[in-house]
Structures are given as structure tokens and as C-alpha cells.
């Protein structure tokens, strides 16, 4: 098979679109671990919830754009409730307890969805306006995936601006460095944690909504996403926004390129990449020691 420049470019774009979803999920997970020290095993379940809430909202409104607004809000709200009532009581007890609790929470969320919507899954159509494929010069590419890349880029820019340029963002960055500083300054750390957890889960829910037209909606969809997100977060460095973005895109492109040449090794490539990064930079690419 001939490897042409256009084939490589097509594959690169595929990798970026793949990476976009990875990044959304990983950013949330990284923020939650970096600032709260919580390993959120339920992150994949929130992703799945996003897809199902989208099915529900779409059923009510018939509008994908309404979903874009309401799904992150709804899932974020659920995240707020989880943080306040389930995770808050565990602070100070060590990293294992939130891990175990969120593991149980994941079971509960997934099985609850099965109870409400059944086990077979749902279909979710690509919105009318975003159907079809576009000629991007080097090949034909689905419009929806281009939209995905664009939307994620915009979102991440907004997130970066929020964290770097606003006062609240400053507080969050300070809290990531040293939570004690916040307490000393009299800032309500609890509210910050609440916000971060809500934001992280909202992003996961949004990712689920965006993935739905591509991958369908089913109760088990969060499982593989969770492990991918962990790997990406670790590669990028826990707690680093830039790290999650870079690692997510990197993994997307690595998977796409490996698939082009040796498809069977694509899965292994991600783990091999993680092992290599950790052995060379034990805290991840952008992690703080």
C-alpha cells in the first residue's frame, strides 16, 4: 500500500478528532486528581451519563444544541451532589477511600441507567446540520468530526483562559500547589473542590454527548474510556491542564498512526507510551514532583 502525504494527513486529522474526546475526559480527571487528590473511578460513568442525558434531552427538545448546553449542566450538577455528600466526608483519609467509593458509585450509576433505559443501548443520530463529509483538500472528512475538533479547541481555550486569567482560576492554581495556602487566606476550600469536581464531571458528560453520534450509547461505554483517560492523565501529568491536552492529542495521533502501519499494536502502543514516559519522567510530561 502506498503511503501518500494525503493519507498521512488524513490519518493525522483522524488522530486529532480521536484526541479531542480523549482530552475532554482526561482534563476532567486530571483536574479532579490534581486539585482534590481524588482518583475518580466513576469518571467513565459520568461520561456515559452525559450520553444518556443527551438521549433524554434530545427526546424532549429535538435539539442537539440544547443538549450541548443542558447535558454538562445536568451531569455537573450530579457531580456537585456526589462531591458534597459522598466524597467530602472522606477527605484526609488517604487516596484509597475516594477511589473505592467512586468505584462503587460507578457500579451504581451504570446499573441505574440499565434500570431506567434498559440494557440494549440507544441510538443517537448525528445532528442534521453536521451530517455528511467535507473535502478538506487532502481527502474527505466527516463534518461532525471537524466540528468536534473545533468545539474542543474552543472549549479548552476558554478553560485555559479561565484558569490562567481569572481570579477564580488563580485560586484554583494556588490550591493545586498547596491547599493550606487557601485556608490561611480564608478562602472556602470546600467550595473550590465542589466547583472542580462539578467542572470535571461536566466535561466528562459533555464528552459522552459528543461521542454519542460516533459510538452509540450503551451502559458499558464508560469502561474503556476510563482506563484510556487514566493513561492519558498519567502521561500528561496529574493535575496539569496543559499536560492532559498534550497527552490526549499525542495519544490520539499515536493510535491513529500505529493503526495505519500495524493495527494490532495500537492498543499496546498506548500502554507502552505510558510506561516509557513514566520511566523517563516519573511524574508525567508536565507533572509537578
Amino acid at each position: 500500500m502506498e503511503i501518500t502525504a494525503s493519507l498521512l494527513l488524513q490519518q493525522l486529522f483522524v488522530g486529532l478528532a480521536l484526541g479531542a474526546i480523549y482530552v475532554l475526559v482526561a482534563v476532567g480527571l486530571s483536574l479532579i486528581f490534581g486539585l482534590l487528590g481524588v482518583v475518580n473511578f466513576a469518571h467513565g460513568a459520568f461520561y456515559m451519563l452525559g450520553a444518556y442525558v443527551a438521549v433524554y434531552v434530545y427526546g424532549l427538545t429535538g435539539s442537539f444544541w440544547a443538549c450541548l448546553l443542558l447535558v454538562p449542566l445536568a451531569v455537573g450538577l450530579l457531580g456537585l451532589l456526589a462531591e458534597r455528600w459522598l466524597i467530602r466526608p472522606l477527605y484526609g483519609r488517604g487516596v484509597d477511600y475516594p477511589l473505592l467509593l467512586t468505584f462503587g458509585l460507578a457500579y451504581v450509576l451504570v446499573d441505574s441507567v440499565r434500570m431506567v433505559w434498559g440494557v440494549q443501548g440507544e441510538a443517537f443520530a448525528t445532528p442534521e446540520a453536521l451530517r455528511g463529509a467535507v473535502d478538506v483538500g487532502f481527502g474527505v472528512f466527516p463534518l461532525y468530526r471537524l466540528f468536534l475538533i473545533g468545539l474542543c479547541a474552543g472549549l479548552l481555550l476558554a478553560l485555559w483562559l479561565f484558569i490562567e486569567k481569572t481570579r477564580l482560576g488563580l485560586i484554583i492554581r494556588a490550591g493545586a500547589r498547596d491547599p493550606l495556602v487557601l485556608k490561611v487566606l480564608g478562602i472556602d476550600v470546600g467550595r473550590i473542590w465542589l466547583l472542580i469536581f462539578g467542572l470535571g464531571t461536566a466535561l466528562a458528560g459533555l464528552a459522552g454527548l459528543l461521542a454519542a453520534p460516533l459510538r452509540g450509547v450503551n451502559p458499558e461505554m464508560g469502561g474503556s474510556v476510563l482506563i484510556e483517560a487514566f493513561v492519558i492523565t498519567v502521561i500528561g501529568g496529574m493535575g496539569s491542564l496543559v499536560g492532559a491536552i498534550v497527552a490526549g492529542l499525542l495519544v490520539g495521533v499515536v493510535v491513529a498512526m500505529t493503526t495505519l502501519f500495524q493495527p494490532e499494536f495500537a492498543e499496546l502502543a498506548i500502554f507502552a507510551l505510558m510506561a516509557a514516559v513514566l520511566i523517563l519522567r516519573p511524574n508525567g510530561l508536565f507533572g509537578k514532583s
Partner: protein
Amino acid sequence: MNLLSALTPAATRHRVLLSIAVLALFPLLMPFHALAINILLFGLFGAGYNLTFGYTGKLSFGHAAFYGTGAYGCGILIATHQVPWPVAIAVGMALGGLVALLIGALAIRTRGIYFAMVTLALAQCVYFAAFHATSLTGGDNGLRGVNLPALQLGSWRLDLLQPLNRYYFMLGFVAVAIWVLSRILNSPFGAVLEAIRENEQRARASGFDVERTKLLSFVISGLFCGLAGALSAINLATVGIDMLSYHTSGQVMMVTLLGGMGTFFGPFIGAGTFLAMEHALTAVTERWQLIVGLMFIGLVLFFPKGIWGSLLARIDR
């Protein structure tokens, strides 16, 4: 002072005997003997994992690699090469330790969640290798034919297809294993492990070779998990690729936490509770995951030391 507190020191001294006694009586108290064996072996797996997690304080996400390697090692020898079972079990166990040595050597320098992730990554490499070595392992179809239907000693024959017989056969191994485990934990080595768990810097400052100790405990943990895997292969007569998957690593972590990490009998309690609860619920509802999940949440919020850990703490008070 109540009766339980008074008994505690004696119980701790004789914890091996007590544990074996409880495990020996266990199948007589419950109707599901095939499940009992699973609990016994998963408890052993958890006890091995507990050495790394509960006693040394390192969260590993790759222990399925040792369990699965032990299973495949023993299984392949019995199914494909008709090697006598004592040799097969020993080899399986040794392979578990060997893989632990390899993974441990690469991972031991990382801290906290990163250690968990490196062990996960390396265990996934083992999974991948086994998945694709189809002629050796059967790939995702699994390895069938690990058949040990009976023990033959001269004219005396023990039918191992009968679950109760198989249980006591396995218990023999488990009993020896936990005795060895207890001796290790009671030794100076065990004390160093706990010192490392409590405060690694201080342990290092006190002159202990922390890295070597951690690696050694990891390898010993691998041996126990390999043994559990080898016995599982014989118990179920098949070895499946999911024994190497991160789901299995996650399960043993959960079970150990559930029982009470850093407690001696905790892993067996955790295994028993989790598996029995799953089993009982599956019989009455398809929504067993919901209930198990709620149980986890409840246990973590109200029984933070795990079931056994909480009970022990209460008794000590």
C-alpha cells in the same frame, strides 16, 4: 474490659490457626461449595496483594499479571505437557514471583498513583502477550484441559471433581501459605515493611534499604498471587485471558480494601463478602451491580477500615 478485648492478644498470636480453623469450617456452613473454593483462592490472592498494598503501603494496579501468569504457567504444564501437578503448581508460583521481579524492578522508583499506573501498564503488556500467544495460551478462547479429576495415592483415590474434596485439597496449600505469610509479617522484615508504609523517609533515614525491601516484598507478593492463580487454574480446569486483565487487578484491590487492608484475615473476609454477596444477589436480581455498588459506598462511608478492620478496631477500643 469485655471478653473480646481480652481475647485479642491471644487471637493475634494464634491468627494462623484461627484463620485455618475458620476456613476449614467455612464450607460446612454454606451450601455453595464451588463458590467457597473461589472465595478461598481469591482470599489467598488478596492476602498476597495485601502484602504490597496493606503492609507496604503501595497501591499496585498490576497484580493480575502475577495471578494470571501463575495460572497460565501451571495450566499450560498440566494441559499441554501433562506435567505432574506438584511441579506445575510450583512452577506457576515461581513464574508469578518472576514476573513480579521484572515489573517491580521497573516500577519501584515511582510514587503513589504513578506506581499504580506503571504497574497497570506493564501488566497490560503481559495481557497483550498472552492474548496473542494463541498456540500457547489459547488466546481469548482460553486454555482448556487443566484437568485434575482425582488424587491417586496407591490404592487410595480422592475424587477432586467433588467441590468439598477439592476445597480441602486447596485449603492445604492455602494453610501453608498463610502460615508462611504470618511468619514473614512477624519477622524483622515485616517490621521494616510497616515502617516503610508509615513513613518511607524515616525508614530510609533509619538506614533500611527501602528500595530493596519494597522490591522483595513485591516479589513475595507475586509468589503468593502466582500460587493463587495456579490453584485457580486447577480448580476451574480452564485459564481465561481475563485473569490477566486490569479488571481482575481492580477486583483484588477492592476486595482487600473491603476486608481491611493491613489486617491478616481481612482479604478472606473481603473475598467472602464480595463474592458471596455477588452470588446471592445474582440469584435474585440482575441488578446485583447496583446493590454491590451501594454496599461499597456504604462500607467506605461508615466502615472506613473495611469490614474486618472495623471490627478489629472496635474490639480493640
